[in-house]
């Protein structure tokens, strides 16, 4: 039924701040991506992006405080999938993000996470409007065959 219809879907996962859950986020995404219409060829890259965002939330946002939580939201509305990773930290100054590919940064061991995310999603926004929370939003536009869910009733 409705094979071409882009139906609403909402997924949310809340965990305490531990890096051990990063694998869980990835398994979860691999399990549900097909139904969200994510094409197979983007799956590994989007999983990488989600790992980076979740790791940042745990490490930089919540500073590994297990009393704080990481919230993961994935929504499909029409032809767009929006993924948000929330932490309970104060966010950061975007203007301080440096380009890891510039010669002076190339040999730095860190600072590639957000850069990689930006390569693999169709839009990134930082969300600061929710009190006590900082969010990273990643948008994925569904195009072509991947936009239509497969299934039958």
């Amino acid at each position, binding site marked *: 039924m409705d094979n071409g219809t882009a139906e609403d879907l909402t997924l949310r996962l809340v965990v305490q701040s531990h890096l051990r859950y990063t694998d869980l986020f990835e398994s979860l995404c691999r399990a549900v991506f097909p139904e969200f219409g994510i094409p197979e060829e983007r799956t590994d890259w989007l999983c990488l992006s989600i*790992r*980076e965002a979740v790791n940042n939330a745990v490490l930089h946002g919540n500073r590994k405080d297990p009393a704080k939580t990481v919230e993961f939201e994935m929504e499909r509305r029409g032809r767009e999938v929006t993924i948000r990773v929330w932490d309970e930290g104060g966010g950061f100054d975007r203007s301080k993000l440096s380009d890891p590919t510039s010669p002076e940064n190339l040999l730095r*061991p860190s600072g590639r996470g957000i850069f*990689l995310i930006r390569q693999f999603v169709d839009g990134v926004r930082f969300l600061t409007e929710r009190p006590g929370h900082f969010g990273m939003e990643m948008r994925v536009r569904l195009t072509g065959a991947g936009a239509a869910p497969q299934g039958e009733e």
Partner: protein
Amino acid sequence: MSFKAYDRGKVSVLELSGRITLGSGDVKMRELIKAQIDAGKKQIVVDLGGVSFIDSSGLGELVAAYTTARRNHVSIKLANLTKKIDDLMEITRLASVFDTYGSVDEAVESFNG
């Protein structure tokens, strides 16, 4: 991540497999390379053929190992990058930092040549 270390003449080969991600394989990889450096090895090939997934921390540890090596006058070359890891090296421009080879043989020969 699992590994195998062996020598090819004067060249140490470190064969890594599995996933190299934050908290699982990234630090271990750096330590493995560090151990080779501490053991006095001067030529190291890291065989990434079995590495299925690497994240920014894995890339970062590779860079850290590279700079440690350079400080110690040790040369590290990479071999057997999968398409995905090769893409990551291009995207991050780390391809311009590392010498990469299609096979361990080619990497080892590049030292001997």
